[in-house]
């Protein structure tokens, strides 16, 4: 259980750091692909929350497929629209 708590703490740190990274990238405006970077980081964070906080890997197979499908479909749709 200590390992589980350490793992959750590590995930939380990654979530906070990637938040700061995406804000920093947005403010630095160093590339024209900021929208893609922001969306990529956001959905990476969404996956971390689903996997480690919601414990999606322990959910039944149909929900695992549906939630991961949601991430893929929404990310692809938003990226396509951001590039339009």
């Amino acid at each position, binding site marked *: 259980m200590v390992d589980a708590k350490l793992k959750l703490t590590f995930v*939380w740190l990654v979530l906070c750091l990637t938040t700061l990274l995406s804000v920093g990238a947005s403010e630095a405006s160093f590339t024209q692909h900021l929208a893609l970077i922001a969306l990529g980081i956001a959905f990476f964070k969404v996956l971390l929350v689903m996997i480690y906080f919601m414990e999606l890997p322990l959910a039944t197979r149909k929900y695992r497929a549906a939630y991961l499908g949601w991430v893929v479909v929404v990310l692809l749709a938003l990226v396509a629209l951001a590039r339009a």
Partner: protein
Amino acid sequence: MNNGSLRIDEQRSPAEDGIWLFVLGDLIVFALFFVTFMVYRADAAPSYAAAQQSLNTQLGTANTIALLTSSWVLALGVHSARLGAALNAKRAIWLSACLGLVFLGGKVSEYYLKLGSGIAAEESDFFMFYFVFTGIHFVHVLIGLLLLSLLALSIKTDQLGERHLRMFEGGAIYWHMVDLLWIVLFALFYLVS
């Protein structure tokens, strides 16, 4: 029971099946919101980018960190509950709810600043989406706070039964959904330029 802790099968699905279905439904509704926002944005990207400049990114970032921290604390609470440490679980729920209140305080001050400077939903499409979508999310946070409070108040002993634990897991899954929806809203409104 073993040394005051529950024997929980770590491989079983957390919470009731219904909560996974409910959360999935909410995720689909918000996915439609996200896509709608991006469709309208694609037609008027410069005006959306200009409107985005008036949002307070620092406040949005602080709010994001508060909600992420709240989710983390609640996830730790679920683990405490599985160990049978009901008091620690209860503390985690209250701390998580307090961080949720911090988030709401941040949102209220943001709304107040915007409305005070004459920016309302009628200002532009961007702000119409901003107020409506973050407003609906705000209501979700309020419902989550109510659920967390009821959960914490229902823990009266230093032991948690299996039924109580599953309710706790269900509440936590809902709260994490609120967190992940905000992650996407924050990216769309504050960062995607």
